[in-house]
């Protein structure tokens, strides 16, 4: 019924078009429909066989950058802070009584440890002389140094 109504409408609206034959004017190349299913089958098989490799590469192409980003994030979160923390060492000064109980060797070690680090630039021309007591006394005598003054000098 719908088809008849549509046909009537077409006949009224476009009578020349309505009167034309609906035969398909396009000619199909010889043997096309015999060959075509095989050609499609070949394409389908080729694509089916190539798919696992392609999928593997595609998955790797997606996975590798994702892994790199995650690893970078973990490294960023776990790395040491930029400003290193300085260890706080509490130094308790010795009392006078403790100082009195030290012998000369202990006093010498204490003085050496508490001495400030020598300035590297100031040491450039210095010579480390290994002198014994006699040599030191001979040097001081030669320089006419006053021992008393040296001992009491702060």
């Amino acid at each position, binding site marked *: 019924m719908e088809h008849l109504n549509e046909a009537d409408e077409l006949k009224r*609206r476009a009578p020349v078009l309505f009167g034309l034959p609906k035969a*398909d004017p396009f000619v199909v190349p010889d043997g096309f429909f015999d060959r075509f299913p095989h050609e499609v089958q070949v*394409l389908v098989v080729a694509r089916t066989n190539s798919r696992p490799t392609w999928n593997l590469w595609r998955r790797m192409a997606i996975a590798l950058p994702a892994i790199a980003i995650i690893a970078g994030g973990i490294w960023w979160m776990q790395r040491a802070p930029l400003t290193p923390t300085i260890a706080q060492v509490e130094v308790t000064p010795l009392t006078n009584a403790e100082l009195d109980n030290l012998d000369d060797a202990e006093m010498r070690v204490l003085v050496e440890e508490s001495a400030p680090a020598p300035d590297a630039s100031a040491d450039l021309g210095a010579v480390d002389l290994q002198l014994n007591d006699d040599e030191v006394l001979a040097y001081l005598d030669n320089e006419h140094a006053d021992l008393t003054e040296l001992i009491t000098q702060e």
Partner: protein
Amino acid sequence: MSEELSDEEILSLFRKEESRHYAFNMLVRKYQRRLYSTVRRMVTDPDETKDVLQNTFIKAWNGLDRFREDSQLFSWLYRIAHNESITHLNKMKRGLFTNDALVLDRLTTTLDNSEHFSGDAILKKLQKAVMRLPTKQRAVFNMKYFDEMKYEEMSAVTGTSVGALKASYHIATKKIENWITAPDQTK
């Protein structure tokens, strides 16, 4: 064609791994002629028709597992062929041919030079008139006039409402009538 399987038989065989390729071969054999006509009317050139039809069936192979049996297999294939034809024509526009006029010129030249056109002068004139329609309107005209599809089927294929399809077909038939009855058409 010695035997033609029903859609249910084809789908059932396709789901089994051992008969998958056989079932698909049967599907191609069953529907290739009808789909060829559909694509050829849109694309015109026989070689390009073959390419579009191959793409259609390859997409069908990839999607047949997900095909829902509540719709007709042919309607589903027709929709793929329709979309592939539109995609092909759009590619043609974007590629070497940059606008509708040049695409029309190419299609009509192909038709004039084609040895694979058996129609007489009036049928050739009709085909040229159809080619002058915008791509989607041409598809609507072909579905209704040549394939005699119902509007509901056309709506399922194109995703366009029945009302819009009726309006589009109405306009298309008027245009074509005017074109084929015009006295002096050189192209």
